[in-house]
């Protein structure tokens, strides 16, 4: 491992119609998803959305009720976890409490019956990689949360897994530590380009780490794409609401042509044209999406509104604006002190920043 050299390790992972149900409960609806070799993909969603199920199917801890799973070219659908060569980092780590750091990390190599010297060499290397040199003989229960997290990562990495799987690995850490470990994980990924699936419900974490993010809800992937894709072109109101802040105003779509929709937005008291999410049909329940930073205050001609609340966030200020219809929306702008509660303003936005999405 020469420092700085970008390697690519790992294989692609493909779900083909994979599904999991328990009796009547569909934990995961039939899902197609391909993670390219060397890609870092995050599964993002609320709890119960099926992201952990998808991860367990990849790991081999659960068998799909339907569909197939491939690692590289190999069909692993019915292959138990121990034969898949995957590295898993569990939520709360699942470190073996009766073993030292070294024994935890060496475990996967010992059960592969590697030579002692080889084990020692690789364990030492991986401990250096996660900055745990000198901690080898400690019991894992003597370590801090952040150190335990790194032992778990080392244990998963040392077997040179084809795919690295992480289930909310930073969930037990405090916010500041989480920041620094996120950057550390990104560094490791950039050095080794190991195929990785990462589960989290923290959108910021997903955006910091991933090549692509899959947003999940109710056992289904709602949208897969880069951070920019998801933010700028969400396919529906759920994705829009889950990634970043958003204003969603109920809208009635009357016509669609060339990726643009004609919609009536009652709370604005007007009809307008905006880009439309693919697949939306006229008459379907929909909303007008405008991000708070795209709401322009003092735009003429515009919609009249009254400042209902002002929240200082430091260099930014969030404004809660009440429309004449009584509906409210949020705007964000660089802090200036020209507005106060009750001030009447006109607001607007650039047409390319408005988007019609299904709800």
């Amino acid at each position, binding site marked *: 491992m020469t420092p700085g050299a970008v390697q690519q390790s790992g294989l692609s992972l493909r779900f083909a119609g994979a599904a999991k149900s328990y009796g009547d409960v569909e934990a995961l609806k039939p899902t197609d998803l391909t993670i390219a070799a060397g890609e870092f993909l995050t599964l993002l969603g609320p709890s119960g959305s099926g992201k952990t199920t998808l991860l367990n199917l990849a790991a081999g*801890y659960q068998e799909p009720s339907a569909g197939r799973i491939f690692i590289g070219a190999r069909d692993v659908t019915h292959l138990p976890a121990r034969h898949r060569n995957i590295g898993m980092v569990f939520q709360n780590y699942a470190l073996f409490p009766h073993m030292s750091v070294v024994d935890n990390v060496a475990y996967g190599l010992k059960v592969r019956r590697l030579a002692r010297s080889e084990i020692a060499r690789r364990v030492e290397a991986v401990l250096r990689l996660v900055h745990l040199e000198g901690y080898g003989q400690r019991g894992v229960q003597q370590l801090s949360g952040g150190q335990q997290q790194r032992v778990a990562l080392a244990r998963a990495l040392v077997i040179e897994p084809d795919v690295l799987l992480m289930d909310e690995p930073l969930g037990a850490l405090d916010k500041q530590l989480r920041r620094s470990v996120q950057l550390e994980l990104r560094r490791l990924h950039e050095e080794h380009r190991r195929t990785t699936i990462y589960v989290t419900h923290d959108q910021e974490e997903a955006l910091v780490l991933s090549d692509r993010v899959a947003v999940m809800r109710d056992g289904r992937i709602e949208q897969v794409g880069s951070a920019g894709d998801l933010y700028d072109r969400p396919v529906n109101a759920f994705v829009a609401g889950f990634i970043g802040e958003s204003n969603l105003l109920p809208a009635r779509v009357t016509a669609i042509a060339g990726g643009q929709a004609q919609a009536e937005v009652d709370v604005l008291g007007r009809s307008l044209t905006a880009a439309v999410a693919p697949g939306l049909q006229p008459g379907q329940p929909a909303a007008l999406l405008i991000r708070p930073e795209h709401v322009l205050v003092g735009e003429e001609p515009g919609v009249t509104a009254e400042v209902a609340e002002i929240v200082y966030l430091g260099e930014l200020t969030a404004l809660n604006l009440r429309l004449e219809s009584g509906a409210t929306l949020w705007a964000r702008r660089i802090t200036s002190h020209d507005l106060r509660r009750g001030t009447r303003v006109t607001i607007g936005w650039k047409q390319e920043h408005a988007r019609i999405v299904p709800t």
Partner: protein
Amino acid sequence: MTRQPLWLSILAHGGAGLVLAFLVLPIVAVLPASVNKASFIFLPPRAYSTRWYGEFFLDSEWRSALSTSLQVALIATVVALVLGTVSAIGLRRIRGRWHSLLTGLFLAPMIVPVIVTAVAVYRSALDVGLAGTVLGLGLSHAMLALPFVVINVGIALRTVDDNWLRAAAGLGAGPWTVFRTVTLPNITPGLVGGAVFSFITSFDEVVVAVFMAGYANKTLPVKIWESIRLEYTPVVAVAAVLMILLAMLLFGGAQALGRGQSILKKSEQPQA
């Protein structure tokens, strides 16, 4: 969630079933033995009759053994419950060396082999004239039952938050009122459990009783013990059935009362 191979599952559950049968079935054997018509025990009985139940209740020796047992168990339960509860509350108020020392003392009757306790207690009881008396039996059984009360009440006391006591005191309640209105209602399941354990411990106890009973005050187990060692008839099986019924009644009742505290609650699973 772990995939467990089928053969392992069958082996484990099959083995468990067999061992559980070994645990439960032999106990049930006294039931047919007690309704045997013949005057010796033969299983399975060739003819059935309840005549031995009649014999049991007509025989003054068996009747008085049953009544002695109930008296002894009652004394043991009351003494152990009062002493045990008070000491469990006291134990909670101390820490460190004294706490471990006294806990050790309170649990010691459970650790010292019963035969040793029995011989020692018998020897001293002879010297002070308590041997062969109901009181002597009751007190020595109370000693054996004390650890169960201390443990049960101690566990129940863990559910009582010290701040509740401080709050009650702050609202003007005296120590006794605090105990009666705050502590007591919350440790009731522990008290019930402790009482049941005490009663059964005494009612079932043989070793100390064999030494202490003398001629006049045989408890039911002592009478059974002696009958078994001489020539036994199905009456012994009747006595055994009665002992089983009483234990089931008391433990079943305690379980129904103390559902919340019951051992039935599977230990908390780690977060899945």
